[in-house]
């Protein structure tokens, strides 16, 4: 089942406009509010593996999609289509953050980011070899986690004072106990097999005040994937993500002690709530020296992540500069202390 969004006025294909957050008709300029656009899709339920071929009802061409594709374009007539059965039923995303950055803005932001690269080669910085830039909705699970922590520890507090010819160190021992309740909300974890986890983690944070009730028209004009991993499968990864946060919180409750020796530490983390969302990401393919580099840009905040090429010459120059600068600073300090410059 393929969904099209036709302009009620002229019948052209409508696309999502990140600036206004509405559907817009490129031909006649009509704007349709997504919240009020009739939604009759969620009842329909199909097996997600059912078909990989669709026929474009616009032009009649055959659309071949992967089993995970949710939204795409017809390669012949360019109409944005949403494959409805892949975003319905248990595959229906609960929420979506729509794109707020347009393609042009994304290109500009990416070019700006390339210019700021301190270690990237000069040829890379001009950012004139962008092969493709694709707006994609990436499937994420947002987790609300609750952690119950019980820690007991032997802690010490030290003070020193002078007594005649002696320096006395007084050590006080305490048995300390902490019962901590921690709630972490909306921790994202990408549920797409294709996306690099580390890359997606660096895209954070998304600002959740833009989180909208999911409606299929948001996807029109973009690519979208359905999730490959369920929330249960991703739970260990998310627990791992907050582990260091929990540890940091625990140690913050022992502030004031000079040493803390943990005797018992119980951390029990439970999944309170998890829901499936689609988050906007611009994928940029960049051709440099016959190699394609992939970058991802947060479609809401414009933050760019990726692994750019590093210029050996620039690295050497920075290294030399920093080392020489440090040495100079040393010499100046030595000079100030009366040690002479050489």
């Amino acid at each position, binding site marked *: 089942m393929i969904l099209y969004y036709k302009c009620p006025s002229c019948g052209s294909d409508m696309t999502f406009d990140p600036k206004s957050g509405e559907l817009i008709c490129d031909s006649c300029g009509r704007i349709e509010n997504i919240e009020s656009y009739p939604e009759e899709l969620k009842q329909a339920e199909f097996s997600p593996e059912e078909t990989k071929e669709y026929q474009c009802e616009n032009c009649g061409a055959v659309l071949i999609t992967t089993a995970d594709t949710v939204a795409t374009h017809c390669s012949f007539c360019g109409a944005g289509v949403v494959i409805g059965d892949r975003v319905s039923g248990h595959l229906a995303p609960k929420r979506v953050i729509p794109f707020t950055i347009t393609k042009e803005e994304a290109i500009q932001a990416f070019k700006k980011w390339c210019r700021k690269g301190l270690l990237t080669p000069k040829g890379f910085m001009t950012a004139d070899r962008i092969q493709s830039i694709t707006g994609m909705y990436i499937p994420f699970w947002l987790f609300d986690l609750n952690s119950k922590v019980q820690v007991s520890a032997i802690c010490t507090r030290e003070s020193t004072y002078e007594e005649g010819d002696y320096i006395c160190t007084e050590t006080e021992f305490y048995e300390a106990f902490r019962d901590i309740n921690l709630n972490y909300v909306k921790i994202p974890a990408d549920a797409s097999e294709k996306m690099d986890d580390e890359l997606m983690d660096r895209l954070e944070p998304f600002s959740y005040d833009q989180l909208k009730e999911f409606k299929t028209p948001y996807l029109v004009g973009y690519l979208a994937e359905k999730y490959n991993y369920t929330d249960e499968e991703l739970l260990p990864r998310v627990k791992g993500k907050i582990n260091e946060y929990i540890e940091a919180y625990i140690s913050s*409750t022992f502030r004031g002690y000079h040493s803390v020796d943990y005797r018992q530490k119980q951390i029990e983390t439970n999944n309170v709530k998890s829901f499936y969302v689609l988050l906007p990401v611009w994928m940029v393919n960049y051709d440099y020296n016959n190699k394609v580099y992939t970058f991802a840009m947060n479609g809401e905040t414009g933050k760019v992540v990726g692994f750019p090429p590093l210029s050996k010459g620039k690295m050497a120059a920075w290294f030399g500069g*920093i080392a020489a600068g440090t040495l100079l600073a040393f010499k100046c300090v030595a000079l100030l202390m*009366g040690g002479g410059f050489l």
Partner: protein
Amino acid sequence: MRHGLLKKPWLILFFVVVFLIGGSWGTLAKAASPHEAIFDQAHLLTRVQKAKLQALSSRLGKDRKTDFLILTVNGTGGQTLERYVEDFYDSQAPGYDKAHGNAAILAIDMKERDVYLAGFQKAKRYLDSGRMDQIRNAITPELSDGQYYQAFSDFMHKAHDYMGYKPGVNPNSILFKWWFQITVSLLAGLIIIFFMAYRSGGRVTVNAKTYLDHQSSGVVNDYDTFLRRTVTRRRKPSNNSKDGGGGGVTPGGYSHSGSSGKF
């Protein structure tokens, strides 16, 4: 004319007195001048070595406006070497630009195998007892080996070097060492470059507080029970007495820094 003749003997007497006083000042100034820096009463140096040290003393002394003096004796007549050096300063009145001026003195007594270093005026401030200790420690092995010329020239070089550092700064501080400065600089470069390369792909901007719900999170229950108290005592390091103990005041009222030891 008659008037002038009458006064003439008086004038002559006046000139004689002035000449004599001037002469005695002249001899004093001679003792204090950089020309006489080596007082080798124990005859440890050859004529050539003496001349070389003399030249070294004038050259380095000019730079620091300080007399670098070497004093060797064979017995001090019962008094301590420190007292001997004090008397020497009082009576000989050395100094770079005036009597009882800036002077750094290395004295050794062959009979008791004592070594004493003293700094007066500017040398007292720049070569405090701590620095004198460092110099003495550096040259004592050479003195023990009988390499007197080497030890004396090392004393002058080191004293000259140390006077380049402001008072209160440890001239042997690791901060002044070339190898340390270069190693730290290279390390700083490496670490910063590594950090920059790591950050070039976008940095993590979420932290422990990003996803924490502050309102519903916190410590539910806690207690801190006092168990026991232990006290350990250790003696204060006796650094201060060591640093300050080397100096003193001459009978003539000149205070000085100093460091004494055996070789």
